[in-house]
């Protein structure tokens, strides 16, 4: 169980940002989140979310980058929770972290796909996903000083990143190795433009309410890359949760998604490029499953739920072989 941040200094930081003392705060730990802590902060009827680094933890993109990038996305019309205030490492949240407005809705994908009250949201969602992606991809890494520059080709950089991640786990996965080899040998040419990539754009990182897409959250894996990466990842079979005939997150067809993406200013990627990034997405999900199982096995995060993900590696492996075979 995570240790809560210091209540008095959190209240002080929040009061300073709001211009008035919010009063007594209650804090509730929100479980989940691979490497970030999330706290629901409430004062009476008002609610915020604190997202911060766990003590001693490391993560892919620093929280300051998340704040900058999600703020830039908000300026081009992507729905994101407004950031209230940011504190660096050693500040009033203990570790680096930021407070944002609480956005009502759900990020539990099976609920988004099945609950009756979200039927209207599902009607609108595919178009909203396409527009949000086009907004994210309208941002150039040059406009985002805290985003690390891309070294080399985005496709080969992705192969190298996931090879290294696999090596850190040390689990023998010959199917993933065969996939990575195929990906290296069949890498697409450089994209028309390198853009901001969200890096984990799927229903689990989106807040959906009855109107549809309410917010894009969890910018931890954002980086500079090929915008087709986000589309391929969104479309892997694992994120369809059984709605296998609806590649766009289990809610829409690929064509609906791409038409909306194109209409909102995105550059529609060709089918071969998309297939390549969808295959890479399956490699990525297989490696993440292996890493989560390893988090349990190594004792870092003992959890039967994480352990069971080790036996789900074969699902993206199958989908990978279907794409490249």
């Amino acid at each position: 169980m995570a240790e809560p941040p210091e209540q008095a200094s959190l209240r002080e930081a929040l009061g300073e940002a709001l211009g008035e003392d919010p009063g007594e705060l209650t804090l509730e730990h929100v479980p989940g989140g691979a490497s970030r802590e999330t706290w629901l902060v409430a004062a009476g009827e008002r609610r915020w979310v604190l997202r911060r680094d766990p003590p001693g933890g490391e993560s892919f993109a620093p929280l300051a980058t998340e704040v900058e990038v999600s703020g830039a996305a908000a300026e081009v019309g992507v729905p994101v929770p407004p950031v209230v205030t940011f504190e660096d490492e050693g500040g009033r949240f203990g570790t680096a972290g930021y407070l944002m407005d609480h956005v009502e809705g759900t990020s539990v994908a099976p609920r988004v796909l099945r609950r009756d009250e979200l039927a209207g949201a599902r009607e609108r969602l595919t178009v909203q996903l396409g527009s949000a992606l086009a907004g994210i991809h309208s941002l150039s890494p040059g406009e985002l000083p805290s985003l690390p520059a891309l070294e080399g080709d985005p496709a080969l950089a992705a192969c190298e990143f996931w090879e290294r991640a696999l090596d850190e786990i040390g689990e023998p996965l010959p199917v993933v190795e065969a996939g990575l080899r195929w990906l290296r040998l069949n890498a697409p040419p450089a994209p028309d433009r390198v853009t901001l990539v969200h890096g984990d754009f799927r229903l689990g990182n989106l807040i959906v309410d009855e109107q549809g897409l309410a917010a894009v959250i969890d910018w931890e894996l954002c980086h500079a890359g090929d915008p087709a990466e986000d589309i391929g990842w969104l479309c892997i079979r694992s994120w369809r949760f059984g709605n296998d005939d609806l590649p766009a997150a289990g809610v829409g067809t690929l064509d609906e998604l791409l038409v909306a993406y194109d209409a909102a200013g995105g550059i529609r990627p060709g089918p071969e490029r998309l297939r390549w990034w969808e295959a890479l997405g399956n490699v990525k999900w297989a490696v993440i499953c292996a890493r989560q199982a390893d988090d349990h096995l190594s004792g870092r995060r003992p959890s039967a739920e994480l352990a069971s993900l080790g036996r789900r590696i074969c699902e993206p492996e199958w989908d990978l072989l279907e794409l490249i075979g």
Partner: protein
Amino acid sequence: MQDRPTAPELLDALAAMLFAEVREWVPRERRFQILVAANVCAVVARELRAGDEPSLADLALFRELLGREPAEPPVADPAGEARAAATDLGAALRAGELDPRLDDAIAGLRDHVRRKLEIARPGYSEDS
């Protein structure tokens, strides 16, 4: 010898209890954990029933893809040897040693994944 039920029979009973009974009185927001538990029981039961066959088939496949002779029977530790061969195969693929026959390796590995799915998620390879 142990008395009946056998290990997979016990796991079947446990999975059924979790799925049909316990799930009902667990708060809605926590039901996912019961489903995880019931599913793990079902996976382990299928694995126990399958015995050494899937590991022996994987060992034979990995050795063939590596260009090695079949393992001499009897294989003392099928799962351990399959794992060691998987490590070698992964390294050979990474090093590009199988590039000239990568398509054959990709085709052959479908059987390996099918064997894993038969234990972990029956039906997955037929749905797509």
